């Protein structure tokens, strides 16, 4: 009995030691394997499905008061696009800026900044949650994207709004882009914002236009928007995942 028991102990000891080593080094290997990261990624579909099931379509993000405003609104990612065309627009106060809206719409068109400002606006004080973990509260004024959609009239096949941006993210000039589905595109708080904290949107926060998607994380809220394209699929755009960060492993649905 004694020898059997001590061999059982040795077995358990080895199992524990092997288990620990497997956990530490194996997890790093698993993080690089396609099948396992895909399995882990299935949680995103669960998060998306359960949040869409649980939350009403029109559920509003919390709005705050002037007293809650962050004294400093952090700029993250690009703070000044390294792009000569953008710099030329900025130098001229975005007078020559045109937002192109097209794709699966009945009436594609472009908007100058003044034309966007002439549309009915919405002002909201909301909390900006970065995927990194920090939050900042800012006041945004802009035209609801729904107002623009009403004018360009999306075709029934349109499923996503894709935002193409002016900021290159690397030396080869890969541009930032993002996408949201039509449910978020039509949402009352989804704005094409041109003012932050009662002043024209600063370059570091996305001038002349950034999108506000208040029920998701900050990386969905693309800055320096040059073009909005309505599409029925995302897999044929850039890396195929629906956004610059999505192509680099972040979730397309950033409601968590």
């Amino acid at each position, binding site marked *: *009995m*004694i020898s059997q028991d001590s061999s059982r102990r040795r077995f358990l000891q080895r199992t524990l030691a092997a288990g620990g080593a497997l956990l530490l080094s194996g997890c790093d290997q698993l993080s690089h394997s396609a099948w396992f990261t895909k399995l*882990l990624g299935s949680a995103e579909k669960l998060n998306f499905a359960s949040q869409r099931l649980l*939350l009403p379509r029109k559920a509003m993000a919390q709005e705050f008061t002037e007293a*809650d405003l962050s004294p400093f*609104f952090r700029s993250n990612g690009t703070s000044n696009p390294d792009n000569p065309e953008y710099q030329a627009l900025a130098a001229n106060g975005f007078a020559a800026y045109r937002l192109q809206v097209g794709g699966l719409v009945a009436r594609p068109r472009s908007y100058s900044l003044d034309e966007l400002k002439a549309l009915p606006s919405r002002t909201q004080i909301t909390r900006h949650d970065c995927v990194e*973990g920090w939050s900042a509260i800012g006041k945004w004024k802009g035209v609801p994207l729904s107002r623009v959609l009403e004018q360009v009239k999306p075709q029934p096949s349109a499923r996503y709004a894709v935002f193409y941006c002016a900021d290159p993210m690397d030396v080869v000039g890969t541009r930032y882009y993002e996408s949201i589905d039509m449910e978020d595109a039509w949402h009352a708080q989804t704005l094409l914002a041109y003012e932050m904290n009662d002043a024209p949107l600063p370059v570091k926060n996305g001038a002349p236009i950034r999108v506000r998607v208040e029920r998701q994380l900050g990386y969905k809220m693309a800055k320096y928007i040059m073009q909005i394209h309505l599409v029925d699929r995302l897999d044929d755009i850039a890396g195929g995942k629906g956004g610059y960060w999505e192509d680099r492993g972040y979730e397309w649905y950033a409601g*968590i």
Partner: protein
Amino acid sequence: MPPPDKAAGVRTIWYRRHTWPIRLMHWINVLAFIVLLMSGLQIFNAYPALNWGKSSYSGQPPILQMGARLDAEGNPMGVTRVIGHEFNTTGVLGVSAGMDGQLAQRGFPAWITLPSQQWLAMGRRWHFFFAWVLVINGLAYIAYTLASCHLTHDLVPNRADWRSIGQSIKDHLLLRQARGEAARYYNILQKLTYLGVIFVLFPLVILMGWAMSPGLNTLFPGWVDVFGGRQSARTIHFVVAWLLVGFVFIHVFEVVISGFWNNLRSMITGRYRIGGSEDD
């Protein structure tokens, strides 16, 4: 010659201490908790500070902050600030050696984060997948403990338990273990600790995780402010995670001193021995 225990007349009793669903759910929980802790620290490292309130930029300094600066000799130094007090934590917090051995600026060190390198997107994947594992496993556990009466029989303190609380505190401080029939049952401190972990700490850490979701924030706008705001929720999430780590340390310590192999076996095969020795 018979073993001393037998000579003294102590009979060895084997019994089934834990049913298979409890054993299975215990180990699933172990795996999920380890992954959630380590991937959580990876996520923390993306913004290695904790704030109180609705936002991180409210004019108030962070409660906790990990950073780096150069010391007098020009060497990188890890600095951790806790409520205005500064500590040199080089090598562990703020600045530590990565898997390549090079000192680098990071909140928690590579050996405790998942993945080991700085990789927020992958940390989130691990975290959210195993969060579902933890929640589903936890719901199954609660359903099972209710249906099997494990909760009412074994975990909820009875009158005798409450009367024994003073003795139980004394026993724990003196590291005295229950023997014979008494070892069949959880003691009062054990019951209260398990109930606290199952019904307070785990639900709280999950709720504070949900409180950080901008999507779930819209369920009842403002519900997160009950806990002080989103950044407070993040801080509570962090603190409760470490309280759970504290529980794990005490739990494993008690497992070791009250008969490590006997306890471990009872959580693997279910068999638990009362009286006698391992070799019977």
